[in-house]
């Protein structure tokens, strides 16, 4: 049986797909910012915090890292309204993605912080630096440099994972794709095009992160 590929209908819906792309980008960028904030604060609490705080952060990290994102998303979007917390799809998506990325980021940042040799910290102490100064001048910069590649690939994976929010009807790129699919019946074409867009996004993000790394760390 022969099939003629027909991309015209898919490309005709480009403005519609573009709207989805914008939400995908928004979700990705906001989540990266919030996830990084959670990651830095959480890792600091995990490494330097009081014992109960350390345990609380560990429970959060393990709970998130050992359950699927889509279930977390369903729990927040479908489950929480019965507890009186109701969010629209975009907000629920943003919350779920941030909580998810935060847990992974904590682990990465923690590994970076713990990789700083003890002698470095002792050197700081012997120079009479306060703990805050040691963190600010001795620990954080080399730690960030070490964790940057892992963070960057985690962020790219997150960008791809935002496609899951289509399952709670957030109007992201993947969701607009399934609407185009149901309108045009060009199943293969629309998903092939959208996969190509995600691939391009992933490459752009990788390039941006590589550039950022050069900008921040390479000259020092």
């Amino acid at each position, binding site marked *: 049986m022969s099939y003629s590929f027909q991309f015209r209908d898919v490309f005709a819906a480009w403005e519609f797909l573009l709207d989805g792309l914008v939400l995908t980008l928004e979700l990705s960028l906001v989540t990266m910012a919030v996830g990084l904030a959670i990651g830095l604060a959480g890792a600091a609490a995990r490494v330097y915090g009081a014992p109960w705080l350390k345990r609380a952060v560990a429970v959060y990290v393990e709970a998130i*890292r050992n359950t699927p994102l889509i*279930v977390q998303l369903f729990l927040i979007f479908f489950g929480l309204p*019965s507890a009186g917390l109701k969010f629209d799809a975009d907000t629920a998506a943003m919350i779920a993605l941030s909580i998810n990325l935060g847990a992974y980021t904590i682990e990465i940042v923690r590994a970076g912080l713990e990789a700083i040799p003890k002698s470095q910290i002792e050197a700081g102490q012997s120079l009479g630096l306060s703990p805050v100064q040691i963190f600010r001048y001795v620990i954080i910069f080399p730690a960030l440099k070490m964790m940057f590649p892992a963070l960057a690939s985690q962020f790219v994976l997150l960008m791809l994972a935002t496609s899951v929010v289509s399952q709670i009807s957030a109007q992201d790129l993947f969701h607009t794709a399934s609407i185009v699919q149901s309108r045009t019946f060009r199943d293969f074409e629309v998903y092939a095009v959208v996969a190509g867009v*995600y691939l391009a996004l*992933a490459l752009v993000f990788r390039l941006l992160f590589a550039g950022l790394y050069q900008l921040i760390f390479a000259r020092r």
Partner: protein
Amino acid sequence: MIREFALIDVLYLVAAMRWTLALTAIAFIGGGLVGLAVALLRVSPLAPLRWIGTIYVLAVQGTPLLAWLFVFFFGLSILGIEVSPWIAAAASYSIYAGAFLGEIWRGALQAIPRTQWEAGSSLGLSLAQQLRYIIVPQATRLAIPPTVGFLVQLIKNTSLAAVIGFVELTREGQLTTATTFRPFTVYLTVAALYFLLCFPLTQASRRLERRMLHGAR
């Protein structure tokens, strides 16, 4: 019909875990075969073969798993074949897991010092023999902890098969929600069941990694 979320529903969810495990097993076997090929391509002495491996990894790691599932499930109908969720899931997960396992195993292969290959070739071993008797046995040890770690990712990602109607743990959760209208309890139970599957593996991966670090010293 609406009814209460009862013990029987929990049992249904537990029973649905077997399809999550079956899908994980299929993905791991299929992905393992693809991954082996990818790892070998990536360490091949021939540049064009290395490029094929690199492009494969770049393409798969740069696209959402969901897109693969949809392309196989909805898209392949253009060939006039009726694609079952099983086939679509098996194909998608093999492609996906192959890229990640391939990268993990390539890393393990490349962590073996060059001199080990050279020692093999100086003993007159062929390339295949060097791999078989010298490199792979050592690389396997290195590869086990991250492979177990990836298994956790795989178990979690089988949840995405729910969206093409594959009835595993997450899909069973959706169905239970539809009959009981207790989404919070149901999805919390589903999450707990995933946790029971994944957490021991996470711990095992960590323990293996620590043991290996000590072993190397």
